[in-house]
């Protein structure tokens, strides 16, 4: 119906306008090409150039793959990838466990349910920079309560953000605070989609709650959990605002994740060719990792 109907309705118009489908799709097509596709190709081009915006009057030289060769030996870049990876795995892992647990705990009827669920979701909508600022304050040795709590337990005073061995974990904690609600929300909506009758049938068969969760609920929501964790991991790998606010990549380079390093290379040292090469490597690694992950997900879901 659609195409014929479309043609008849637009029969009087000229050119492109004769096809209403095209007319409705064209703005988005042009827009995404201009702002997403062209910049991406431009990044690839930039990565093949030696271009510093201030040095040598900002002259650009085509150098082929030299930037990539340089990256092979760049320990600082390797460290940044490792930091991003550790951050992604630890933060996503803990968020998934906590989010699923909380969803199972609150998916029942109780007084104040709406308030509790709303409150537990709140952090995920907050400005990441503000979340960074909140935890920056909380972790301060001079005014924050975390440090007071630590010294109360005989572990402090200790400046978590100021020490290379703990700064990353402080940022992980802030990330867990903000994004556990994301997993929680998606799992909660999946739980609400499970028909009551399935659970009731199991209860009639005298299955314990533990068995019900393990053998019935978890297999049913496994797909949702894996997708939620994937979406979260993609975001976690490119963490930027929290690190920028809480440590700026320091102390030393202890929390310098790839995003921070790319930003510094391009906008503090103005090496935009080299920064573009880093970007491309990061993108290739991400795409490979997701491809691999999706394969695993598919295999896991086939097992059941």
């Amino acid at each position: 119906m659609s195409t014929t109907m479309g043609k008849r309705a637009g029969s009087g118009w000229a050119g492109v306008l004769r096809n209403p489908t095209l007319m409705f799709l064209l703005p988005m097509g042009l827009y995404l090409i201009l702002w997403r596709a062209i910049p991406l190709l431009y990044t690839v081009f930039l990565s093949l150039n030696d271009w510093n915006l201030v040095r040598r009057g900002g002259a650009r030289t085509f150098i082929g793959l030299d930037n990539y060769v340089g990256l092979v030996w760049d320990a600082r870049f390797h460290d940044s990838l490792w930091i991003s990876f550790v951050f992604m795995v630890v933060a996503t892992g803990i968020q998934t466990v906590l989010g699923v647990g909380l969803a199972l705990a609150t998916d029942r009827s109780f007084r104040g349910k709406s308030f509790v669920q709303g409150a537990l979701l709140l952090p995920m909508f907050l400005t990441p920079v503000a979340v960074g600022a909140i935890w920056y304050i909380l972790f301060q040795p001079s005014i924050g309560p975390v440090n007071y709590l630590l010294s109360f337990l005989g572990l402090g005073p200790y400046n978590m953000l100021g020490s290379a061995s703990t700064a990353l974990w402080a940022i992980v904690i802030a990330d867990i605070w903000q994004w556990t609600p994301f997993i929680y929300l998606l799992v909660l909506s999946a739980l609400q989609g499970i028909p009551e009758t399935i659970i009731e049938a199991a209860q009639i068969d005298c299955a314990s709650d533990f068995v019900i969760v393990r053998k019935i609920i978890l297999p049913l929501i496994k797909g949702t959990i894996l997708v939620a964790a994937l979406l979260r991991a993609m975001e976690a790998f490119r963490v930027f605002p929290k690190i920028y606010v809480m440590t700026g990549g320091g102390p030393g380079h202890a929390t310098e994740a790839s995003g921070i390093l790319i930003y510094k290379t391009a906008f503090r040292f103005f090496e935009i060719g080299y920064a573009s090469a880093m970007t491309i490597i990061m993108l290739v690694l991400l795409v490979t990792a997701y491809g691999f992950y999706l394969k695993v997900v598919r295999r896991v879901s086939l097992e059941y």
Partner: protein
Amino acid sequence: MVAAKSPLKTTLIVLVIAVALLWTLFPLYYLFLTSVKSIRIIMERPPRLFVWPPSFEMYERILIKEHFYEFFVNSFIIAAGATLLALAIGGLAAFAFSHWKFRGKEPLFLVSMIGRMFPPITTLVPIYLMVMYAGLLDTYLALILIYASFQVPLVLLILRDFFSQVPREISECAYIDGCTPWQVFIRIILPLAKNGIVAAGILCFVEAWNEFIFALVLTSFKAKTAPVVLATYVENEGTLQWGALAALGVWTVMPTLLFMLFLRKFLIRGLTVGALKA
């Protein structure tokens, strides 16, 4: 779902919920608390967990005397502009995807979604250069155009879902009555899917308000947004002006808090569709 029977289990669940609430709400409370403490009280050990009367001196100083309210106006204009633009562009495409069959529909939809999958930082450098060449550095327009490009795929995803819930018979009747697709879109689909438009719009607004890295790179003074001001404030005055820093933080999270209080249903609906349909 699983009914709590034994008192032990009930107690355990109540305890879990209580700890989760404390963990979630305390950091926000402490931010607010720091913003209303006077300078002397801020430095007290152990940190006070309650102050009365609260002092709103910092809000006055930061927002009015130091003119920081201008940056919140900037943030508002940019987020609102990007939301409207993304709704317009994404809405048109969502109509085509939900109501017509055409060649290459599925691949085209997937390609539009890829835009959302790869990290924005991958286009940071080229977009900086493009904006610089166009002479748009430090303008509202640059950020509006860029944020809209991030949100268009999300709008498409959410609105396609809502538009396709409008019964087909209604639009078919309108075509028979001689309406053009354009009229069907404006007069029938949009009004019937207004919940979806609100949901998509709120989510766009929140994401545009929260964005940091592009605002950091593309603005310097005139079009600076709230998150950039907050981050640079931490960098420059971080260990000196705790109260002012916290007051800025409170203002930065304010729109989200208001949306959560009054329009939570839309926010959550939009987000669930946005995440799970991808």
